[in-house]
Structure formats: structure tokens, C-alpha cells
């Protein structure tokens, strides 16, 4: 068995040890504990994904994930104070904040009171220890063969479980913030769930941030979303982790009929990161816009791997991805669209563009279309290039110093992906995150 042999790298072995040490501390007994054990065995059969697994071709964790850090301890008072300071910089006015510090829900930093009608919020720990079987099943549900999802299933410690009842239209955005407090180098395993009932609507923002003193840490997160018939979710994801962090996040989104999912992700933080999203159409007449931006420099590596599963007819999807890579940064975009045999009248388009700011920057774009239906409109495009010298000169001839001229053109380049965010406040958030990156460039 070659796979078993491969799994026994030092890092792989260290993860096995970590699970053995942590398992008794992890929430959920009985069936949950059994599910964890099965998930860990599934993980161990393959081990850390590497470049010979097609989906992980550009993000070889056997090379990029050098250490296995111990499971994070629950945050102490000092850690919570540092986290609170970091939160101030990333507060969203009017949003309901739900904070995970070092992978553990922090009630005192979160706003769980005065819930709008139809909104229920619990922690993952509560649901795994004493939740109803239906929620537990959904949390353990994803039949995802990916080993990092399996590892997350085995190790998940805490998270937020949000339910929005049929017909409830939330006016207040929900803001899940993952904060690394800067305690000892450690790993966090979180999983959150959002269930939107029929004709419900909500806005969800996820931020990944770190206290000023935080350096090395590992985020293993996953998000499970179900969007009911006629429901709508607006989703923004901002990865502004520390520059030495590692972040692997998987999401699994299922849409009912006539549902709408508008999602945008921006990654400017982390040393190594990967966001892998599966979006599945389970009901007809639904729409998805999924846009993203990577802003990378130094030796940052960021991978966005999206899988759109058009399993039913009459659905539409749009993907716009932009990456800006400086220094020796490495951006990866893999966009796979599958149109299954019965999914007639599918309208799916994907466009990815990369802007390289240095000779050593790298961007890999891999669009994949697998179409098994014959009456569909599908298309994809990918380009890679440098900043246009004639535009730069025009701006400089008008008095803009080089970096400022570049910034203006970079903002315009990523603008198309950001513009699709419907909510003004959320769009402003993405613009601000992009500006923070540009300002840090000097």
C-alpha cells in the first residue's frame, strides 16, 4: 500500500500523535467520537495531500506544512485581552460579532443577546455534546473525500452553529471572527454551520485575523452552508492572518431551488493558505456569484480551489477571480465546473486574471469545465500579465509616484471582482482590506 507508506512522513506521524493526545478533550461522545475515529482513519489512509493528488498539484502540503503544532489551549484572560485589541481594527459597524479565539468560542467578546426573530446561535461544542441528531448529522455530513476535510472532522473543537428560520430576513450581518491570540504556536480546528430556511436571507462575514504578537499558528476551518428554497445568502470572507500563519479552510454549500448565493473572498494574509469550496445546486432556478481576490507578496502562497456542481437544470453561476502577486508570491486558482447530464439550460461562466508585479511571482490558473449536458451556455477564460507600462507612464506623467500609480491600477484590476458585492458596507470592507495590503507595500 503505497499510500500508507506515504502517509508516514514526519508531519503525518506527528498529526497521528496529535489526534491521540487530543481525542479525549474533543467534544462529543458515542456516535460523534466514532465518527471522529472513522474520519481520522480516512485521513490516515492518504495522509497529507501532495502534488501527485491532482486537486493539490500546486499546494503540496508535504512540502508546505513543515510542522504539526499542538492543539491550541483554551484562551486565558491575557489571550482574550490581546484578541479584543485585534478585534477593534476589524470591527464592522452594525454587525453581530461571533468570535473564536484560538479556535474556541469566546462568549464575552461575542454578541449573542437580543437575537432577531428566527435566528438561533449555538456553539459547535454545545451541539456536539448535547445537540439534536439532525444538526449533528449535518455537521458530520459532508461526504467529502478530501483528506483535510476528514482531518477537520476528526479534530473539530468549536465553531458557530447558526440557524435562520423559514422566512426570516436578517437585517444585521453576522460576523464570525477567527482570532489567533498570539499564545504559543498551536493549531486550531473549527467548524461552523449556517442553515438558511426557505425564503430566509442573511449576510455572513468571516474574518481571519491575529493579535499583533501572533506569529506562527495553523487554522483548520470548515464551513457548512445550506440555503433553502427561495433563500439568499451574501457572504464575504477576508483572510488577514499573520504572515507566518497557515490556513486551510473547506466549505460546502448547498442551494435549494430559486436560491441565491453571492460570495466574495479576499486573501492578503497567511504564509500558506488554501480555500476549497464546493458549491452544489440541488434545486432549479438558483444563482451563484463567486468572486475572489488574492493579494500576495513576500513568499506567500494562496490557493483558491472552487468546485461548482451543476447537478440540476436552469441554474446560473459566475466566477470572477483576480490575483495580484509580487516578490516571490504564488497564487493558485483552480476552478472546476461540472454540468451533470440532466442539468440543461445551465449558464456557467468563469474568468480568472492574474497580475504579476515581479519576475519571480507565480500564478497558476486551472479552469476545468466538464459538461455532460447538451443545451448549456458555459465559458471560461484565464489571463496572466504585468501592469501596462503605458498606463503607468500616463499616471506618472500626471504626478503619481510609481507605487501610487501601481496602487491605483491594482485597485482597478481587483475592482471588478469586488464590485459584485451587493451590500455597500461589505464592499467597503473588501476595499479597505485591499487598501491595507497596498499601504503595507509602501
Amino acid at each position, binding site marked *: 500500500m503505497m499510500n500508507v507508506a506515504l502517509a508516514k512522513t514526519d508531519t503525518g506521524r506527528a498529526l497521528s500523535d496529535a489526534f491521540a493526545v487530543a481525542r479525549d478533550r474533543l467534544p462529543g461522545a458515542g456516535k460523534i467520537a466514532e465518527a471522529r475515529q472513522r474520519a481520522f482513519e480516512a485521513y490516515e489512509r492518504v495522509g497529507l495531500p501532495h502534488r501527485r493528488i491532482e486537486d493539490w498539484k500546486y499546494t503540496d502540503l508535504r512540502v508546505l506544512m513543515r510542522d504539526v503544532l499542538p492543539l491550541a489551549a483554551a484562551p486565558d484572560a491575557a489571550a482574550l485581552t490581546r484578541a479584543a485589541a485585534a478585534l477593534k481594527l476589524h470591527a464592522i459597524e452594525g454587525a453581530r460579532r461571533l468570535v473564536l479565539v484560538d479556535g474556541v468560542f469566546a462568549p464575552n467578546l461575542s454578541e449573542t443577546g437580543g437575537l432577531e426573530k428566527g435566528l438561533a446561535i449555538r456553539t459547535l461544542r454545545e451541539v456536539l455534546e448535547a445537540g439534536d441528531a439532525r444538526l449533528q448529522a449535518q455537521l458530520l455530513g459532508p461526504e467529502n473525500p478530501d483528506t483535510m476535510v476528514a482531518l477537520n472532522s476528526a479534530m473539530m473543537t468549536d465553531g458557530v452553529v447558526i440557524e435562520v428560520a423559514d422566512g426570516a430576513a436578517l437585517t444585521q450581518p453576522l460576523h464570525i471572527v477567527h482570532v489567533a491570540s498570539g499564545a504559543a504556536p498551536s493549531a486550531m480546528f473549527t467548524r461552523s454551520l449556517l442553515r438558511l430556511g426557505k425564503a430566509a436571507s442573511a449576510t455572513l462575514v468571516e474574518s481571519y485575523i491575529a493579535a499583533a504578537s501572533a506569529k506562527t499558528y495553523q487554522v483548520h476551518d470548515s464551513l457548512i452552508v445550506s440555503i433553502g428554497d427561495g433563500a439568499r445568502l451574501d457572504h464575504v470572507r477576508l483572510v488577514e492572518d499573520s504572515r507566518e500563519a497557515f490556513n486551510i479552510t473547506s466549505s460546502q454549500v448547498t442551494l435549494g431551488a430559486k436560491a441565491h448565493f453571492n460570495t466574495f473572498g479576499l486573501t492578503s494574509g497567511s504564509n500558506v493558505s488554501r480555500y476549497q469550496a464546493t458549491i452544489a445546486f440541488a434545486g432549479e432556478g438558483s444563482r451563484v456569484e463567486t468572486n475572489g481576490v488574492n493579494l500576495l507578496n513576500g513568499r506567500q502562497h494562496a490557493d483558491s480551489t472552487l468546485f461548482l456542481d451543476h447537478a440540476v437544470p436552469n441554474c446560473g453561476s459566475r466566477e470572477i477571480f483576480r490575483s495580484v502577486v509580487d516578490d516571490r508570491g504564488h497564487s493558485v486558482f483552480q476552478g472546476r465546473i461540472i454540468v451533470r447530464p440532466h442539468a440543461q439550460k445551465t449558464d456557467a461562466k468563469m474568468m480568472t486574471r492574474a497580475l504579476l508585479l515581479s519576475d519571480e511571482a507565480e500564478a497558476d490558473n486551472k479552469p476545468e469545465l466538464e459538461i455532460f449536458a447538451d443545451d448549456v451556455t458555459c465559458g471560461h477564460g484565464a489571463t496572466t500579465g504585468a501592469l501596462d507600462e503605458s498606463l503607468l507612464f500616463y499616471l506618472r*506623467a*500626471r*504626478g503619481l509616484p*510609481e507605487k501610487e500609480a501601481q496602487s491605483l491600477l491594482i485597485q*482597478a484590476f481587483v475592482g471588478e471582482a469586488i464590485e459584485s458585492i451587493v451590500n455597500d458596507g461589505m464592499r467597503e470592507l473588501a476595499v479597505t482590506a485591499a487598501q491595507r495590503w497596498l499601504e503595507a507595500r509602501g
Partner: protein
Amino acid sequence: MMPLLEVKNLQVRVEEREILHGLSLTVNKGEVHAIMGPNGSGKSTLSHVIAGKPGYEVTGGEILFNGEDLLAMSPDARAAKGVFLAFQYPVEIPGVATMTFLRTALNAQRKARGEGEYSTPDFLKKVREVAAKLNIPQEMLRRGVNVGFSGGEKKRNEVLQMALFEPSLCILDEMDSGLDIDALRVAADGVNALRSPDRAMVVITHYQRLLNYIVPDFVHVMSKGRVVKSGGKELALELEASGYAQFEDAA
């Protein structure tokens, strides 16, 4: 009085080919100079080198601006010092709103000169005034820079910037190219309104037509990378009658 611009024996190469072979030109404040010449005589190269466009290698000579070495400055530093090039083909910049561009550029120039930034109301007021004079509708200012603009609108946008930035030296590179008579008149009126004793202009053109609207004090004829003849505005009319062939032979 120190000249505003002194080009002395300028030699310029592009890749391996020498385009300017020792060009000299002196421009004082308040003067309008026309530079005429056939295609390929080096007119646009001169304008690009003064503005600091990359890709040109200066192999000899110098350019002084108010006595300072212009060639040692970055393009943005030259703009802040008061050099303005109105482009022959202004570029389109999708995604950068014209207003954002104008404000960023104006404030960058002011910052470089150690002046305070304009407040937003003052800036808006100033842009509206200038735009109204040039018949530039507000809607155009909300669009991306030059995106979807006609040839005439692009040139008017150049004149708008000239009026807003208040440079001391304006170089107009083939401002008439691609314009019909009506568009040309609007742009030229805008330029004429900016003539002042403190400002000089260098009008580069292939045709005499533009000089009916922007009347120069001096006319220089370029051929094969040199100024081969200088004179008053009557020289332009002479050229209109006899063409450039005589100078091509002489050069």
C-alpha cells in the same frame, strides 16, 4: 532672465537607432512655440523625453527646466515641477474613475511641492468650474479615465487636466490628430484660455491647421532629429505652401 526650458544639443536613441541628433531649443515664460515637421522627424520623441517616458536613451546633451537638470528627475517629479504633456493618444484606464484620478494626481503634485492637500469641497468646486468651461459634462467625470470617450472628449480631458494642474510648461503632442474642426476649436479655446505670462507652451503638430487656432510666437521646423529652421508664425504659412520636402533635402 533664466529660460523656462533649455534643450541643449540633445541626442536620443531608441534601441539602437539615434532619433535626435543634437537638438537645441530655448523656451521662455509666456512664449508659445510650435514645432512642425514631417512624420519621423523626432517631434514626439522630443515631447516624450521631456516628460520622462521610459524606453529612450539620452546619449548626449541636457535639458534644463528653470535651470534644473530635468533628465535626473522621475516623470512624477517633473509633473510636480510644472511639466505637463498633453498626450497624442490619451490612454483609457478602466476601473479608475476620472474624479479619483484627478484628485489623486493633483494631491500627489501638491504633496511633492510641500503644499497641503485640497479639501474635497474645494477640489470639487475647482473641477466643476474648469469642466463647465470646457463643456465636459459631470457624467464624463464619473466614468473610468477616458473610457468610452470620443477623440474630442479625450483631448478635452487633457485640457481639463492642464487647467487643473496649472503647469508652467505645456507640451501639446499632435493635439489635432483625430479631431474634426469643431472639436479642435473647443480644445484650442481651452488651451488659449491658459495662455499666460507665467506659462509657456510647446505645440507639436504636423499640420499648420492647428496654428490657426493656437497662434504661436515662434515656429521651428524639425527634420531628421534636428531643428533645421526657426522663425515667426509666418514660417508656418510658408510651410503650408511649400511643404516639408525642401527641409528633408537640406537635413
